[in-house]
């Protein structure tokens, strides 16, 4: 059963159609959740007892940082699937991740730095969390650079996949860095075992933005992957069928 689904989703024309139908179902809830969550975080959530209103940066910083890690995991997993099963759809999805991933890694770094300035007294510190997140940005940029530098699609797929898979070791390092080392960065308050260390009125808007960002990524990556498939499969019959049908 799962294998049939796997093969169906792995077939480019099926993927193209299903993705096209799925996009609005991801995009609209994403827009509503992100807007409502960020607004609620800026207005309804109570000010932090230590950080005052400055803590509200969390409502854009934490979801951006979450995306930076989640998108990388998706990019590396689909790269591995593409490499092992020679699936063009998987490579197309992987290739569709790097722009969004890199830009949200940059957002996480900049918003973190804007948060660090008033709270820690510095924009930047060569701290384990900050340094490993910066390395993540370079991994995304390296991946994108390999893809743009290699003309042949199959070779670009393989070379970039190897980089993505090797770089995945950085993901747990970033996540656990604040626990493993004595970091300036605060410990996780949501993404951890046990109860979140936050009152519900602060947590609810954050969870909305986290879910919203995840759906948003789904919509954007599918839009990109459809374009990517058209580009790769331009010589095939199904592309002619799809674009010739109107």
């Amino acid at each position: 059963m799962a294998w049939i689904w796997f093969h169906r989703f792995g077939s480019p024309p099926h993927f193209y159609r299903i993705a096209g139908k799925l996009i609005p179902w991801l995009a609209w809830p994403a827009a509503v959740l992100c807007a409502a969550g960020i607004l609620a975080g800026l207005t309804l959530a109570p000010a932090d007892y230590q950080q005052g209103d400055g803590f509200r940066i969390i409502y854009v910083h934490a979801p951006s940082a979450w995306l930076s890690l989640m998108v990388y995991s998706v990019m590396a997993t689909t790269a591995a699937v593409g490499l092992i099963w020679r699936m063009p759809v998987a490579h197309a999805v992987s290739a569709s991740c790097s722009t969004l991933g890199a830009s949200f890694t940059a957002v996480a770094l900049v918003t973190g730095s804007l948060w660090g300035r008033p709270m820690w007294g510095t924009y930047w510190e060569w701290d384990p969390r900050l340094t490993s997140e910066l390395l993540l940005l370079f991994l995304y940029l390296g991946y994108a650079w390999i893809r743009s530098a290699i003309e042949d699609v199959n070779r670009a797929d393989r070379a970039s996949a190897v980089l993505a898979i090797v770089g995945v070791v950085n993901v747990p390092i970033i996540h656990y860095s604040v626990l493993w080392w004595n970091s300036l960065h605060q410990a996780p308050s949501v993404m951890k075992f046990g109860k979140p260390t936050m009152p519900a009125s602060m947590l609810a808007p954050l969870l909305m933005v986290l879910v919203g960002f995840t759906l948003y990524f789904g919509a954007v990556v599918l839009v990109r992957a459809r374009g990517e498939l058209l580009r790769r499969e331009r010589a095939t019959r199904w592309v002619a069928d799809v674009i010739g049908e109107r």
Partner: protein
Amino acid sequence: MHFLRMGGYAAYVWPSVGLTVAVMLLNVYWARRAARQALAVARRRLQMQREGA
């Protein structure tokens, strides 16, 4: 007005929110532009094939 002041943290909170929203919108724009261009190229290719045949 009180809301905009963000308890003295306005200079840190508002640029963070502005940047995040701007990057979200930009990624939507970039993705749609890439998809549109791919479709246009595929259409042109098909057209040329049909005219050639």
